[in-house]
């Protein structure tokens, strides 16, 4: 079991490609959950808008603690622009 940081980033779907590019630049692995709906300061995000651009994605990435600051800096402008959420917590990763 290796101690890592789990970073969860909730962002509006069409920004995913940008997010992926910048996470890959940091050399991180990640998992993405799609078609999440939600409610935030900028209103509701439902799945019934025909455009498909109003749903959220949630990216989960488990990384070393020293990688978190760079990730946070990279993500912040995206969150500023179209809103969202970025949560960091402690996890143990099963080494295989």
């Amino acid at each position: 079991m290796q101690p890592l940081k789990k970073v969860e980033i909730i962002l509006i779907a069409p920004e995913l490609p940008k997010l992926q590019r910048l996470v890959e630049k940091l050399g991180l692995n990640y998992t993405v959950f799609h078609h999440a709906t939600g409610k935030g300061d900028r209103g509701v995000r439902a799945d019934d808008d025909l455009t498909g651009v109003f749903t959220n994605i949630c990216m989960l990435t488990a990384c070393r603690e020293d990688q978190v600051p760079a990730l946070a800096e990279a993500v912040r402008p995206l969150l500023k622009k179209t809103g969202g959420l970025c949560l960091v917590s402690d996890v143990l990763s099963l080494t295989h």
Partner: protein
Amino acid sequence: MNVDQLLTNFLSPPILFFLLGMVATLVRSDLELPAPLPKILSLYLLLAIGFRGGVELAHSGLTAQVAATLGVAVLAAVAVPVYTYFILRLRLDPANAAAIAATYGSISAVTFITATAFLDATRVAYSGHMVAAMALMESPAIVVGVVFARLAAKRAAAAAAGEVEPIDWGHIGRDAFLNGSVFLLVGSLLVGAATGNRVGSAALAPFTDQMFTGVLALFLLDMGIIAARRLGDLRRAGIFLGAFAILVPLLNAALGLLAARLLGLGHGDALLFVILCASASYIAVPAAMRLAVPEANPSLYVTMALALTFPFNILVGIPLYEAAVLAFIGP
């Protein structure tokens, strides 16, 4: 407008399914079309209307009048967002004004398609290049809207002596001219035009023609459901935007009718041109604005187009414009 036209429009299955969808939401039935079915249906409708328009275009060919019509169409698509922007600025901040102006400057393919179904039912001919006109009218308003929003942001930033992120024209252009719905519509049009005079294209007809009304009905059922869901948000829009969502389409329809008369369009084409001017986009434009003008509030521009302008156009607008066309242009 005589009663029979109203009835022909009202008592057509697609319209009734739209109303059925609205009722479903209003009585709080849990009826809904599961995602991504609505997206699939709209992809089908764009492909089918594009392909059919292209095939007809292949038969009719490009004439001077066709070229003129397309030119005027683009002109309208640029002019409308410009003048509406300044009207909207009377009450709104630049971002929302720009987003709404773009919404009403662009078009609604489904409104157009519903009008073609109405023409089919009333056995009125229309030509394939009107689909090309629709395709050309979808994008310009997006560019206009984004430009207005960015210029305003620049001024604000200058005033606040802050810096503003540079305009990414490539991205805006892609959103405007290459977004999925525009691309599929134009692409299908080209495929239809390229194959229209060859045997092969006939094999597609059962798919693009026979299913068409049925898919439209199913899609309008969903449109009714989601339009009604947004009726609640209308309060937030307020009286000014509420009136805007009805009056501006009427004004654009009138301008469109004038242009159609000057262009010497026939009955069917005239109605379609009018409906294009009167309709507002709730797919391509919101998708683009959401990213290009994130400060604008979607529950304003989407709600107006979806919950007011769209129902108004297909329920009242089509027979109304039809009557105007008959009076002003003749059968």
